[in-house]
C-alpha cells in the first residue's frame, strides 16, 4: 500500500545546495583553520596547543584578550543604553514615524565602513568639525584630539552596532501588550516601576539577543580599531589582521581566530538556550 505523504510546501531536499555551500565555504575552512593552528615546526615544541597556551599565558597576548573583552563589554553596554530608549520610543510613541526611524537606525549599515569611519575622523579630528564648533561657541579654548583615541573607537563601534541592539529589542517590545503596562499603572505602579516590573522583564529576550549580537560583532571588528584607534586599542581581531599582514604568523593567527570563533559559538549557544527556555511558553 502506498503511504500518503502529507503535502508540504518545502522538501528537505531543497536544503542540499545551502548545505553544500556552507560545507565548502564555511565548515571546511574552519576545520582547515583548526589544523592550521597547530605549530608546523615540531621543533618549537609545546604540542598542538602551543599557540593557545601562548595566547593565554604571554602577558602581552593575555592583555589583548582582556582588552578585547573590555571593548566588547563596554560597546555592548553603551549600545544597550542608547538602543533601548530608541526601541521603546519607536514601539510606543513613533506611530507613523516608525518607518523613518527604522531607516535612520539602519542607515549606518548601508554605508561603506571606510566612508563611515573616515566620516568620524573628519568630525573628530583636531581641526575637525566638532572641535571647530566647540571653539566657535567658546566652550573650549584649545582643540582636543578626539580621533586616534579609544573614545573614537567606541563612538565608531556604537554607531554601527546600535542598529542590531535597537532592532532586537524593538522586535520583542512590539510583542508586549500595552495593556500589561496599563494594568500595572492601575494597580498602583508609577511609570518607573511599571518599566522595572513589567516592561523590562518582558523584554529580557530582546536585550539578550541584542547584547550577544553586539558582543560577538564587536569581537569581530578590526577596521574601526585600525582606522579610529590610532594604535591605542589592540583587540584580538586587529591582532589577527596584523599577524596576517605583517608578521605572516599564520599558525598563531589561526589559533586566535579559533578563540574568537569559540566566543561567538558560546554566544549563540547562550542565545539558543534563552530561546529554548522561552519556547516553553505557548
Amino acid at each position: 500500500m502506498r503511504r500518503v505523504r502529507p503535502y508540504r510546501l518545502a522538501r528537505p531536499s531543497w536544503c542540499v545546495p545551502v548545505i553544500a555551500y556552507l560545507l565548502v565555504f564555511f565548515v571546511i575552512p574552519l576545520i582547515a583553520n583548526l589544523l592550521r593552528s597547530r605549530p608546523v615546526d615540531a621543533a618549537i615544541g609545546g604540542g598542538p596547543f602551543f599557540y593557545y597556551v601562548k595566547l593565554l599565558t604571554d602577558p602581552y597576548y593575555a592583555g589583548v584578550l582582556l582588552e578585547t573583552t573590555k571593548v566588547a563589554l563596554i560597546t555592548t553596554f553603551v549600545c544597550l543604553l542608547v538602543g533601548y530608549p530608541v526601541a521603546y520610543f519607536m514601539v510606543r510613541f513613533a506611530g507613523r514615524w516608525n518607518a523613518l526611524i527604522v531607516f535612520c537606525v539602519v542607515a549606518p549599515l548601508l554605508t561603506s565602513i571606510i566612508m563611515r569611519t573616515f566620516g568620524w575622523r573628519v568630525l573628530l579630528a583636531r581641526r575637525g568639525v566638532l572641535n571647530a564648533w566647540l571653539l566657535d561657541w567658546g566652550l573650549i579654548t584649545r582643540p582636543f584630539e578626539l580621533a586616534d583615541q579609544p573614545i573614537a573607537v567606541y563612538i565608531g563601534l556604537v554607531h554601527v552596532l546600535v542598529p542590531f541592539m535597537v532592532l532586537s529589542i524593538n522586535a520583542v517590545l512590539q510583542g508586549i501588550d500595552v495593556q500589561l503596562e496599563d494594568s500595572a499603572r492601575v494597580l498602583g505602579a508609577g511609570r518607573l516601576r511599571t518599566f522595572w516590573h513589567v516592561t523590562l522583564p518582558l523584554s529580557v529576550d530582546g536585550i539578550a539577543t541584542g547584547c550577544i549580537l553586539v558582543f560577538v560583532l564587536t569581537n569581530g571588528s578590526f577596521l574601526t580599531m585600525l582606522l579610529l584607534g590610532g594604535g591605542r586599542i589592540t583587540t584580538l581581531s586587529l591582532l589577527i589582521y596584523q599577524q596576517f599582514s605583517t608578521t605572516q604568523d599564520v599558525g598563531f593567527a589561526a589559533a586566535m581566530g579559533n578563540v574568537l570563533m569559540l566566543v561567538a559559538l558560546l554566544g549563540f549557544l547562550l542565545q539558543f538556550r534563552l530561546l529554548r527556555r522561552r519556547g516553553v511558553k505557548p
Partner: protein
Amino acid sequence: MSVRPHGGGNNTTAGAPVELADVSKSFGGVQVLKPLRLALVPGEMLALLGPSGCGKTTTLRLIAGFEAPDTGSIRVAGRDVTGLPPNKRGLGMVFQNYSLFPHMTVGENVAFGLRMRRTGRAEKARRVREMLATVRLDGYEDRLIHQLSGGQQQRIALARALATSPSVLLLDEPLGALDKNLRERMQFELRDIQRRLGITSILVTHDQEEALTMSDRVAVMAHGEVLQVGRPTEVYDRPLTRFVSEFLGTANIFAAVVTGANGPNRWSVALDAQPHAAGTVESPAALAPGQRVTLAVRPERLSLGPPTDGTVRATVRDVVFRGTYFAYELTASGQPQPVFAYTQLRQPVAADAAVGLSWEPGGAVILQDTA
C-alpha cells in the same frame, strides 16, 4: 464569606463613588465623547452599554486616568482626580483580554497591587489567599498564567483587581473573550462577587443581555453620548428613543396619531399604516389629539389573534422556534418593515394566514424621536 473592601474605599466621603461632570474627549479633531454627565450610586453595578466604537472604552480610560479629558472633571469618592495619574486613583480594572503578567505566577499577579503599595509579606500572602478564595481558585498561587483556562484567567484578573480593595471596579468587556456557556456562568459569578463585596462597579459591554442581567442600572451610549440611564427593566420597557429601544432588543416601530384620551395617562392612537387599527398607549406626559407620535412595541407584548376589528392586520411569513419561545415574522399592510411577535406557545396559525395583532395598554411606549 464576608470580604468587605477596606482601605482604598473611603465610604465616609460625601459624593458619588464616580462622578463625571461634562467630560468630553476628542482624538485628532474627532469628538469621541460629547460632554458627559454620569454619577454612580455607592455599591451599584452600572452597565455602560453601546455599540462598538461609541466611546465606552474611552470613558473607562478617562476614569482610570489613561486619557485626559478635554473638558470637565472626574471625581472618584468625592475627590477630584482629573489631573492624577492612573496609579494615584485607587481604582481596580479588568481588561477584556485579562492582561495578566505572563512572567509572574498567579500569586504574584494577584499580589502585584499590594506589592506596589508595599504591603507587608504576611498581610500580602493572607490577602492573596483571600482573593483566590473569593474567585474560587484556592491554592492556585504557584500556577503559571499560561496553565490556566480562559475562565480561570478571567477570575485571576478579577482577583488581582480586587486585591487592593479599590473604591471602584472598572470592567471593560470582561467576559467578551469567553464562549457562551462560560460567559453566562461568569456573569452570575461576577455579579455575585460584586454584590458580596458591595463594590461600586462600571461594566462596559456591547451585549444588551449581559447589561440587562448583570447591572443595577444601564447607561445606553451611542456616538459618544449617554442616551438614557435607568434600571434594566426601565430602559427595556420604557426606552426614550428608537435607538435605545432597538439596541436593547427587537422592537416594532409604528408611526401613529393620537386620537383622544382614554383614561389616566392613557391615550388612544391610530396607526398611520392602518388607520382602522386602534391601540392604547401609556404616557406620563400629556398628549394632544392629532399629535403625531412614534410607538415601540416589544415582540413579546404583541399578541396574535383572529383578524378582528381594531387589530393590526398582518400576514404570517415565518415561524421560528427559539428554544424558549416562538418567533413570528409578519407583514402588516402599509408597514414597510416586518413585524415580529414572540409567543410562549405555538399559535394555531399556518404560514400566510391572516392574523390580527394587538397589545395591552402598557405594552407600547411613545418614543421621543420621529419615525
